[in-house]
Structure formats: C-alpha cells, structure tokens
C-alpha cells in the first residue's frame, strides 16, 4: 500500500549550496521528476532559469546535456542530423566509409540522452527562440521519448526518461498542445529575504548594513515603473562585485548609486535617473522609504 518509489530521497531536489530555490520551484521540479514530464520554466531574464538545470544535475548526480536553441534551430536537429554534404563530399573524393550510412548520422542532444544508459538531465534552453512550430515538432518525441532514424530504420528509445528542463524567455507564445504536456513554473522575482540568501551565495559575509543599503537602492530602482529595463538578480550580483572591489562605504551608498552602468543597461533609463538626482530627487535610505510593501 505504501508504494511511492518516486518520492524518495534519491530523486528529490532541494536546491544546492550554489542555488537557492523557492519551495514552489522545488515542488515543481520534484513533481516533474516524479511524473516524468517536461518542466517549463519562465521568468524574467537573470532569475536563474538556465542555471536551474545545472544544479538539478548536480543535486541528483545525473549527467547533463544541454541544447541551446537558436532562431535557426530545427526540431529534428535535436534528434539527429544526417550529414549529406559530408557524405557527398566523401563520395566525390573517396574519403571515409561512404557505404555505411550510419557514420553520417550524428545524434543530437535529445538522441544522445535517449541512448545513454544513465538517466540524464536535459536542458532545452530558450525554446521560444526557434520557429513557432518548433515545440510542436517535438511533441511525440517528448511524449514517448523515442524516435526512429529515417535513413537507417533504427529506433532510439529512452532507457531512462531524462529529466527535461525547458526554459522560455517569452519571446514567442508556445503552442497549447505543447504546454498541456508540461509542468509549468514561473520564477518570481525574489523577495528581499530570498534575495539576501541569493546574494549570500555569491558574496558571503557581506556586511549586513551595506547589504541593506544595496538592496534598498536595488528594489527602489526596480519599483520605478518608468524604467524600460529593470535590473535583475544577475545584475545585482555584478553590481555588488563592483562595489566590493571599489571598496565603497555604506555611507557613500546612502546618497549615491555608484556604477550605475552595471544596473541600468538602457541609456534612456540612466539619463532619466541622472535627471532625477540632478533635480534634487531623493534616493531612499531606509526600508521605510520604499513604502508599505517592504515594511510588513
């Protein structure tokens, strides 16, 4: 009666030392592993979508294979590529074993994970970069985790269904049929508490008062609706690195935002902020300055 082999410690993701995951994210990951469904991850740029796969592979001790999708990627490339040009060339110039078609079939990332003996973590990164039909072309292969190499008739079926992590940057909408097969998680922008933990992973032992100042400025900037591009977690981490290297003090940080360029990547955003400070606009110094949302 108590058979739940999927839920044991072995395949249970809890985040790693280098990756702080929210409970909701961990639950989504574990659900995807247990149900053997693809996990679709969306979220703002810089919230660690791509890193997640790497850390799942670390935490679960599974090898990882990644497939970075480009605008020119075709679904079939993930399965295998038949290198006709090479074969044509070999036939013309007499190199290689032209008679054996198998030496011209090169497995793609999906093909390799299917064929592997060990369960893999497979990352399909930025699936929405490719053509709109791209996800639809993979439906059957992802459902059944098998495909046939047309040229040789060989069937490649997954021995161990890979843990499939798919990220999307929301450039294109994904087809419904594809979405229905996925577990979905939207990586929220981290709240202050979670952000402190994330920063701690990258910059351990940061002075608490300094960190507070940094985060006050950061969340204040993010709260400005006029910004065309809001700074994200990875930009915050870079910014702190710059601050630490320059040895900035907490008191200077109270009234200034040095190295603005590492936070704001849009010229107009930088200009409007400078204009604001030149006009004598106040920068926040305390959490109270950020309004009720941060002072519950």
């Amino acid at each position, binding site marked *: 009666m108590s058979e739940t082999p999927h839920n044991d410690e072995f395949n249970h993701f809890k985040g790693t030392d280098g990756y702080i995951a929210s*409970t909701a994210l961990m639950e989504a990951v574990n659900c995807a592993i247990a*149900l053997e469904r693809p996990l679709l991850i969306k979220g703002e740029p810089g919230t660690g979508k791509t890193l997640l796969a790497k850390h799942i592979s670390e935490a679960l001790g599974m090898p990882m294979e990644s497939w970075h999708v480009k605008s020119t990627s075709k679904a079939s490339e993930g399965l295998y590529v038949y290198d006709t040009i090479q074969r044509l060339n070999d036939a013309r110039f007499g190199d290689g074993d032209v008679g054996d078609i198998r030496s011209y079939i090169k497995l793609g990332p999906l093909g390799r994970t299917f064929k592997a003996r060990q369960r893999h973590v497979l990352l399909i990164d930025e699936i929405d970069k490719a053509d709109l039909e791209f996800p639809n072309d993979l439906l059957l292969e992802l459902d059944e985790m098998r495909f046939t190499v047309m040229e040789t008739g060989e069937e490649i079926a997954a021995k161990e269904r890979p843990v499939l992590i798919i990220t999307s940057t929301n*450039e294109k909408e994904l087809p419904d049929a594809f979405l229905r097969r996925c577990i979905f998680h939207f990586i929220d922008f981290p709240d202050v508490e979670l952000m402190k933990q994330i920063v701690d992973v990258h910059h351990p032992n940061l002075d608490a008062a300094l960190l507070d100042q940094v985060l006050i400025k950061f969340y204040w900037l993010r709260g400005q609706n*006029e910004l065309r591009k809001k700074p994200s977690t990875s930009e915050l981490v870079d910014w702190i690195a710059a601050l630490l290297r320059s040895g900035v003090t907490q008191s200077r940080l109270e009234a200034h935002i040095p190295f603005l360029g590492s936070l704001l990547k849009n010229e107009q955003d930088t200009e409007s902020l400078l204009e604001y400070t030149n006009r004598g606009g106040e920068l926040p110094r305390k959490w109270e300055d950020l309004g009720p949302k941060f002072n519950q």
Partner: protein
Amino acid sequence: MFLEFFYALRAEGVPVAIQEWMMLMKALEMGQHASSLTSFYNLSRACLVKSESYFDSFDRVFAKVFHGVEGEFSVSDELMQWLENPINFVELTEEERAALEMLTSDELMRRYLEILEEQTERHDGGGKWIGTGGRSPFGHGGEHPTGIRVGGTSRNRSAMKVAEDRRYRNYRTDVTLDLRQTKVALKRLRRLTRSGPATELDLDESISETCKNGGEIELVFRPEHRNNVRLLLLMDVGGTMDPHFWPVSRLLTALHEEHGLREFRPYYFHNCVYEQIYEDAWLLQDSAIPTGDLMRHYDERWKVVIVGDAAMHPYELMGLRGNINPRLEAETRGIDWLRRIDDHFQRAVWINPEPPAYWQRSQTANVIRSIFPMFELTVDGIEQAVSALIGARRVAAAG
C-alpha cells in the same frame, strides 16, 4: 470540491484541459503535495496553469473555492462531493462504499483529503476526519508512508495568503501592457518570403544538381526567409492622449525595437489626421509633410496602425474646418482623410488606449470604428490588431 475547482478555473477563463487535470490527479496520487495546502497550491498551479498571465485568475479561483479550508473546516460536504465522483458505485451504501475504497484506492483517497487540511506534520490517523464518519477509510493506514517533507515552510506564506494577495495581478494580459509582452504580441506581425541575396544552401537542389552534373559537386544557394511586413504608424499625440503616455510609449518602443519588420515608419498627428502629418512627435512645423504624400510614398501593401483615443468634438472630425489648429484651416474634413487612408492601404487598424466601454459612449469613436477595426491597447488587443493586419481577410490581389 475538486471538480468544482476545475470548472471554476475554466469559468474564469483559465484554459485547463482534462489532460492537465489528470496530471494533477496523478501527482496527488504520488503524494507530491506533501499534505499541505501550500504545496497543493504550488502543485496544482504548476500542473494546471501554463502562463503567468493566468496566475491572477488562478489565485482568485483558489481563494474562492478553498476559502475557509485552512481554518476550522468541516469535511462532510466535501467528502460527500468526493464520493459522488463517478469512479464510485452510486448504488452502494455509505458503508460498502467505504469498504470498497479501503480495498482499492484507499491510499489515494486519504491523500485527497489530506490536502484539504493545512498540515505540516505527520498525519497520525486523522482523528479529525474520523470524527464525522467513524467507518470511513481515512483513519486507516496511520502514518504517511513517504514521510512528509516540511522544508522551507517558514519562508513561505500559506497558500491562502498567497492566493488572496493576488501578486500576479500585473501579469494579466488583459490589463497591463509591458514592453516584453508588447513585443511578444508584435512578433506575430510577420509574413515570411524569400528575398534578398542568395546565402542559404539549398540542399535538395544541390544534390539534384550534383547528380545531374555526374557527381561533380554543385552547390545551389537561395535567399533566406525574411519578414516582408512594412508598417506605417500614425500616432495621436498631445491633449487627451497625455494620460496614456506610458502605455503608448511602450508600444512605440516595442515597435522600434522590433527588428523583424522589413520597414517601420512612425508619423504623428494631433486629434485627427488633416492636411499635414508630422515626422516629429512634437509636431514641429518643419517636420510636416502633406498627408497626401503618405499615399504617394507608401504603396497599398504597407500595414497601417493608427493609435489614438478617437475622442474629439464631432465637428473636428466631420466639420470642414475641423482642425483645432486655426492656422491650418482644412479643405478636406478629417473623416475624409481617414477614409482615404483606409481606401489606399489594404490593411489598417486603430488602436485605442481608452477602454472599449468608453468608445461606445464617444460619438466620434463610433464613427471612426465604422471605418477602421478598433482594438484596445492591451496585449490581447494588440494581438487581435496584429491578426487583423496579417490574417486571411481582405486578401491582396497580388502575391
């Protein structure tokens, strides 16, 4: 209660399919929810909702359906509803049914019920549940077989709190319009054709030509697929448009950054299109060009998007001297210019930053709607506008 949840989601417009529902059921069966309402919230959202734009609707439904579940909670109604599930035999008595459940999916049932209760520790027989029924199978089995993970509860607020907070309100596509979403909506604005220099290897042709050539390799190239959409934007600025500055500005930025377009030209006007139209958003006189030139410079294949609130005095639209700038007295009425634009270009749409309820009350907006299809300045509205520009209606005579 669960089916009610399913239908409530669908009623709220969240596209949940049976397939996803079954996925959730399977996850529950496996004990993925770890017996807490928060986990159930996370799990059901991960399985059922596939876009952050529906998170807010999901939250509202969740709060409504499971309202009161966390506090003092009487199980009998929900239990009865669950028992009415078609997998049960209706003819059986309560007792028989319970016995049957114990034999078949006792485990499943117990977990279904566990999620109804906020619970962060081991479920030790469920005295609370048994209290109502006595013979119910839920007391059976004792401990949770898998051991319940209690990880990270301190950092998380309860599901009800999260759901009632409606933190995802800003992701609703029918309300807000941020730059990224606008870009996504505009991505559909493309019609691919092969044009330009031949840079892409045409494999099939190459093989065919090589064979014809007796094995001597002959590479054939062809032009790449390129977007062939040219877009003309006419934008109302100043006056009643000022309150809409930010959403309109985001649309403009998105269009400027949409490098997929073959060509993009913005022009500006105030209130309505009259004799002159401006290249500069400040409507500087030296940037003015005769509106008639638009029709001469840009052929009918250009797609036209007009952005404006379509709100003005009826005279400014239909009167002969409608232009509110007195220096520029017009020979042609504003409405005639609009009709000319519509006649000349095959596809033209109007995007209105005001909500639709407002157009219906506005006399001029209603007149303009009879000329151009009018859409709201929301992600949904832009998507509809794009399909009106690209879709199959009013197909062009040539290529």
